[in-house]
């Protein structure tokens, strides 16, 4: 369970928002909304622990994330603006490296199955630099499927994705929520997940 208490964040010396409170339990979906420059990305990065908030606290399962330190990271997957995949490696190698770093080993067949589900059939072993933008984003999204972390933090997950990939994304989020996961995301495109209640948080 993620709990945010009286959170205030700043970019540079400019205060973006303050007094932010919310609590998310397993199975909940939160969309962070707001105009450009309102601090959507800053909020997500603060939730990841990259940025120390000005005031307030973020708690995971009742403990401050500063206290949990590295142990907190076992519970989150973050997908940022950048794909976080190495161009020189293949999608398969990228997946293997990132899963090894997160502490779990993944068999090649499982990794290939995940990549195929993401629509990379036949391209699993191509260097990523040969793939199109959309396919690269799909390769990046594959990380969500191999990681068992309960909290997904997704910053604009739908950029560069086509209609079928957006559908797939909605399906993946739905599955994750049914498995008692939590998803926090920002998007400029409509994203509808069947069978889930969408909570909205508007930064202004």
């Amino acid at each position, binding site marked *: 369970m993620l709990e945010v208490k009286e959170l205030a964040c700043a970019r540079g010396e*400019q205060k973006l928002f303050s007094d932010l409170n919310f609590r998310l339990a397993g199975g909940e979906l939160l969309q962070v909304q707001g105009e450009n420059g309102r601090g959507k990305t800053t909020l997500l990065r603060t939730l990841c622990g990259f940025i*120390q908030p000005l005031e307030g606290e973020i708690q995971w399962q009742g403990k401050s994330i500063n206290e949990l330190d590295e142990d907190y990271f076992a519970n989150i997957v973050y997908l940022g603006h950048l794909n976080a995949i190495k161009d020189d490696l293949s999608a398969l190698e990228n997946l293997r490296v990132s899963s090894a770093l997160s502490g779990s080993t993944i068999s090649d067949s499982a990794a290939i199955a995940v990549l195929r589900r993401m629509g990379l059939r036949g391209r699993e072993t191509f260097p990523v630099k040969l793939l199109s933008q959309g396919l690269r984003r799909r390769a990046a999204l594959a990380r969500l499927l191999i990681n068992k972390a309960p909290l997904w933090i997704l910053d604009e997950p739908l950029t560069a994705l086509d209609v079928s990939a957006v559908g797939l994304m909605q399906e993946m989020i739905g599955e994750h929520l049914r498995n008692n996961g939590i998803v926090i995301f920002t998007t400029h495109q409509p994203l509808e997940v069947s069978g889930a209640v969408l909570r909205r948080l508007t930064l202004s």
Partner: protein
Amino acid sequence: MAINWFKYAAPSSFYGLAGKLVPWFAWPAAILFCVGIYIGFFVAPTDAVQSEAYRIIFIHVPASILSMFIYLIMAGYAALGLIFNTRLSSMMATSLAPTGALFAFISLWTGALWGKPMWGAWWVWDARLTSELILLFLYLGFISLQASIEDPRRADRAGALLAIVGSVNVPIIYFSVKWWNTLHQGSTVKLSGTSMHISMQQAMFTMFAALWLYAIAISLLRVRSIILERERNSQWVTEIVEMKQ
């Protein structure tokens, strides 16, 4: 505790306090500077070995000591800012750096002008001068690192880390340079071996005090601008006296 020190740790209250303090440091600095010059040139006798040229040390020695001292103070402020997240101390560190660098430069410049008549060369690879040069590089590194980071918070924290690592390194650098100096020999020159006349000491201490007070005054003055720049979005900035025009 009678005085609430933490009140002055807030940039808004420190801004006013610093403004009030500046003249209290600046005027004594100016007076002591004149007194120091007077003692240094009219009271202190001519040195038997170095003739009049030794009078450069009244500037050189205080500037050298202060440049090292300011680096440590700066690193201390920066560390405070990093550990306790007090923004004011980070601003003080930023404000001290240029003055420290200038003192390091003054020390090198006067060292060269003193070295030419004494050692016959503008520059000798003496341990002290070399360390001073490296200290200047450390200052320049700190200043340029902070200057190239847009986000003031990152600039504070990155600068602090650099200053701490730098101040740990300063003694290592000093001793390695000293060791290297004895290894290569040749250029080590014994500085003023004769005992100093009492008036020479007085002149040096007076100049030291003057430069010290000056450093405090100028950095307080500079930190006021830094505070205003960083706090420009706060309400209190629009309410200060200087804005009522």
